[in-house]
């Protein structure tokens, strides 16, 4: 497939990006196995079979990606004891069925997998991020609320729902640890391809939940494009004002925030066109779309001035700019 950088959601392209990410995982797993055998005479149990299953298209969960990254890191640092433990965990991973799974964090089993999700979502040394399960008495409601909002998305903006389902395998409802003085809306992690975390305490309306879906899935879409090169090539210690955060952020973060703001604007626009909103919801969507518009242009100005974009980064941001050009003013 000739990879399209067009801005609107595209289910076929999303399925290709997902397939490509999984193919890359298969190749990486094969390479690890080959290197271990060639150099150390080691054959981790189940590794070759996992590579074969991945290559033939078996669908593995986000946790398989997470384990791969932790194993690779352990091997690079010479921590073979940890790598051996992680290989044993990897050998227990099993394929999943393709339908979207919506769960709360405490429904993630076994406990080692739950801890892995928490660990891999807490990768920013400047901003600790602890995710926890929603309270037990609220456990059923977040899942129902997400599912209801997703069903509305499928009817109102089917293209976005199709793209979402092509990339996201698990929606995990969580709450944040507010002891650090901040909360969050949702999150995703390159190291857990296919997982999307949503704050169960936020997004009180279907409109807010749909905007969160557009927001978080856009981050995942960008992950899908980011295999051979990063989106930006700025130094990691550079910091800039973010359109979606109150703390200075690296250029990669600004880039992501800018692109997803455009995607959120797109989603809100399609919602308005769907004629499936109450008058109260229309007001919410109009307000959200205006906020997204401002966020995009604020972020774009920073990216334009200071961003050192890769070829991939340039193409994607250009498509977002082309979409947003008619909306430079409120």
């Amino acid at each position, binding site marked *: 497939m000739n990879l399209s950088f067009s801005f609107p959601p595209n289910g076929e392209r999303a399925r290709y990006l997902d397939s490509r990410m999984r193919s890359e*995982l298969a190749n*990486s797993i094969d*390479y*690890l196995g080959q290197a271990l055998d060639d*150099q*150390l005479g080691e054959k981790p149990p189940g590794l070759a079979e996992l590579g074969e299953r991945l290559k033939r298209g078996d669908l593995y969960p986000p946790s398989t990606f997470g384990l*791969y*990254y932790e194993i*690779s890191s352990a091997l*690079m640092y*010479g921590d073979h004891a940890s790598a051996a*433990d992680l290989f044993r965990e990897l050998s227990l991973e099993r394929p999943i069925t393709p339908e979207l799974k919506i769960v709360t*964090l*405490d429904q993630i089993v076994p*406990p080692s997998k739950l*801890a892995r999700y928490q*660990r891999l*979502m807490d*990768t*920013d*040394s*400047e901003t600790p*991020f602890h995710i*926890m*399960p929603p309270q037990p008495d609220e456990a059923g409601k977040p899942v129902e609320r997400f599912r209801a909002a997703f069903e509305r998305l499928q009817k109102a903006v089917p293209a976005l729902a199709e793209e979402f389902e092509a990339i996201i395998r698990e929606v995990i409802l969580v*709450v944040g*640890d*507010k002891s650090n003085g*901040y*909360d*969050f*809306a*949702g*999150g995703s*992690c390159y*190291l857990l391809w296919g997982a999307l*975390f949503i*704050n169960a305490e*936020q997004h009180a309306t279907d409109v807010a939940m749909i905007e969160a879906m557009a*927001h*978080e899935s856009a*981050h995942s879409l960008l*992950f899908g494009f980011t*295999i*051979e090169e*990063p989106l930006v*090539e*700025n*130094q*990691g*210690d550079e910091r800039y004002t973010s359109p*979606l*955060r*109150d*703390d200075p*952020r690296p250029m*990669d973060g600004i880039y*992501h925030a800018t692109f*997803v703001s455009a995607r959120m604007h797109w989603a809100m626009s399609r919602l308005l066109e769907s004629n499936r909103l109450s008058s109260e919801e229309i007001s919410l969507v109009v307000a959200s779309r205006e*906020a997204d518009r401002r966020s995009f242009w604020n972020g774009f100005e920073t990216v334009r001035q200071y961003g050192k974009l890769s070829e991939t980064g340039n193409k994607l941001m250009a498509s977002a700019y082309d979409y947003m050009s008619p909306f430079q003013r409120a």
Partner: protein
Amino acid sequence: MNKKLVLDQSRLLGFKLLVKDPGNPFAGSAMIGKVPAPVGAKVGKIPAAALIGAKVGKVDRAQVAFSSIIGAKIGKVA
């Protein structure tokens, strides 16, 4: 295992992003959608079960660089 394993990062998903620009260890690009916690917000505690099996990973320059480039992206609450 005493012998050191030599890995070509350019052949590894995710890690190959570091190879193209090895002198570019952006830090902190894990995007968390932060907002100030409302006054009186309950401070949640991580259930003990969630910590079972948790391992404290080693952190060094390469790992920080890696996790920073493609770490968590978390959306801000407006």
